[in-house]
């Protein structure tokens, strides 16, 4: 039996990515990174800013997300997110732009702890992209 399952990433504008030969997906879940293999139990979780790693036969892919929800059910992984970029498409200047935005957000004083935490996460992840 194959060890592959299907992953679908959708953002509000379109279906971003559909792949059905995926062997493992690592998502930055809210309470820490989470690797999902085939026949994982049904789960719903949140994403925090981070990198989604998709490992498949046809090559590995990395995506940067800022938020989202993952749902895994019957070997179908759906990732709903509003902001997603393929790491291969992010060049230096794009990354700097994102970093600047995130830093601005993190330095705001009038935000609550949770958004502060998320913004800090963003900054951290974006810095590691260098």
């Amino acid at each position, binding site marked *: 039996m194959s060890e592959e399952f299907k992953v679908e990433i959708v953002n509000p*504008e*379109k*279906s971003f990515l559909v792949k059905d030969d995926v062997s493992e997906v690592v998502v930055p*879940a809210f309470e820490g990174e989470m690797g999902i293999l085939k026949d994982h139990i049904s*789960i719903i979780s949140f994403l925090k800013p981070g990198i989604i790693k998709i490992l498949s036969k046809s090559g590995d892919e990395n995506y940067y997300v800022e938020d989202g*929800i993952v749902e895994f059910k019957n070997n179908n992984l759906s990732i*709903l997110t509003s902001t997603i970029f393929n790491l291969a498409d992010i060049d230096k200047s794009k990354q700097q732009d994102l970093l600047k935005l995130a830093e601005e957000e993190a330095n705001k004083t009038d935000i609550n702890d949770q958004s502060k935490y998320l913004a800090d996460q963003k900054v951290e992840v974006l810095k590691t992209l260098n």
Partner: protein
Amino acid sequence: MASLDDLKKRIASVKSTQKITKAMKMVAAAKLRRAQESAEKGRPYSEKMNNVILNLSNGISDKENAPKLLSGTGQEKTHLCVVMTSDRGLCGGFNSNIIKKAKSYFAKILDEGKELKIITVGSKGNDQLKRVYGDKIIENISFKESKNANYFDADKVGKMVIEKFEAGEFDVCTIFYNQFKNVITQIPQAQQIIPLNNEGEENSSEESYEFEPDEDEILSNLLPKNISTQIFKAMLENSASEQGSRMSAMDNATRNAGEMVDKLTIEYNRSRQAAITKELIEIISGAESL
């Protein structure tokens, strides 16, 4: 009867109107294809979102303490209506259909003695509503600058709605938009987004989910997002409907202009012929009398 000169002028003016409507039809057709595509592409997201929320709300253990966005405030005194229309006219019954639907809903609410608040999205709806319900409109948003419906705009509206909800300004929120069915049919919709209406959608799958963090926390994060998503969906449907409606309206206008040109041309030819005949008769009868 109009003189030959007048007829000529009218034919020319109708012809130039026809040219404009024809061009508008072409533009609408091109835009429609794009809008329709993005409306269709946007559907999976909102459907999936709905699914997740459905699963979550089924899994929630403590219904009493469910987030207010899901279960409501427990009363239905103040209604907020978000009426989504276009920013441009000349699109047939598109805006009037939404307004008609909204107005009948408003009348019902006011009849029941409830309070009504309106947010208009798009300037056309505001124009039509402010005459009767001007004092009820609390906010008027227009995205004239954005070319296409985008999530960022929808999120702005969504955040505003949630802010007002958290401030206790309303209990029930309904959005009005046109659902795109095909080019000639758009169905005006009233969709209740707060509290979330899941009736009739009893989920059959008894599958249990693992949640991380727990259900309540996920729900309270997810529901605001869902509001924006639903508004975004409505915006996409609306923009596709607008173009579709405009296309068929302009198609009709072009056809009517064509008919009018034909009619006027016949009239023009007749009166020209009549003038010639009249002159001939005058000459002949003049010659005969000699």
